[in-house]
């Protein structure tokens, strides 16, 4: 039996909620709302940046987001664009892949700062879909 055959099918409502979770991530990342950003993860959630050690657990995730906003003023002028979201059922919940484009404002001009991919493992916690593992990956390099 393959993993696909034992995964619980996702409803349209599940997929919409997961799409919105992925979109909501940008809002909190771009406004420095660390508590709301951390709340998008499960209590034992993980965030894995590129070539960086994983950040594990909601408390550490919130502290990580607070440090990012405080120590990197350049991110105050950045907006994250998400596209090409793919969602599939897994035995543990769901998995998603997406593209992300970071745009920096420089005065009246804008510059595409980076393109990355995101790979997510998602779980339901207290009836809501949350990131169990969010990994930043290279995109077409």
């Amino acid at each position, binding site marked *: 039996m393959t993993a696909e055959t034992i995964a619980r099918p996702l409803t349209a409502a599940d997929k919409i909620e997961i799409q919105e979770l992925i979109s*909501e991530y*940008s809002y909190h990342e771009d406004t420095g709302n660390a508590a709301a950003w951390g709340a998008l993860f499960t209590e034992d959630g993980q965030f894995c940046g590129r070539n960086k050690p994983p950040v594990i657990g909601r408390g550490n995730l919130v502290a990580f987001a607070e440090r990012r906003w405080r120590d990197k003023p350049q991110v105050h002028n950045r907006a994250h*664009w*998400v596209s090409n979201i793919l969602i599939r059922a897994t035995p543990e919940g769901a998995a998603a892949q997406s593209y992300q484009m970071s*745009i920096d404002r420089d005065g009246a001009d*804008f510059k595409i700062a980076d393109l990355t991919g995101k790979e997510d493992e998602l779980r339901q916690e207290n009836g809501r879909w949350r990131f169990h593992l969010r990994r930043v990956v290279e995109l077409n390099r």
Partner: protein
Amino acid sequence: MAEHLSAEDRLEIAEIVSRWSHCEDAGDAEGWARLFAPDGSCRNGSGKLMRGHAELLEGSRSRAALPSARGTAHWMGGTLIEPVAGGARARHYGMILRRTPDGLSIASLSDRIYDLRRTDGAWKIMHRDISRLPSGARTQENERPQGGTRQNDR
């Protein structure tokens, strides 16, 4: 009291805010104005408020006639939709791309909020608001427009 939104409601609302881009980029002023309820309103990127079908239609026609409206494409991010008392609120990022002799450039980034109501069996926009992106140190949700966006940023 906030109402439950079904998957069908959410898809219909997502299509309305997507259709906005299609109407704007095609210069379809009538189609754009029909996205709103008859008593709907829209604040544009310059802070101007248009109220009611006639003002919305005139505003859209005026914008479509601007040279700066040509060669642009409205590119929206993922839409967040939540139930609110009497209807729904949708929100997404908006990017306007402009063709120039040197290629495509990003003309503006914005945060767009739509208040919608179900009228005669269809979702319609009651009010649309806009604020600029990136938002800097802003952490309050749903704040009013900050100004400083360009005239064509709608």
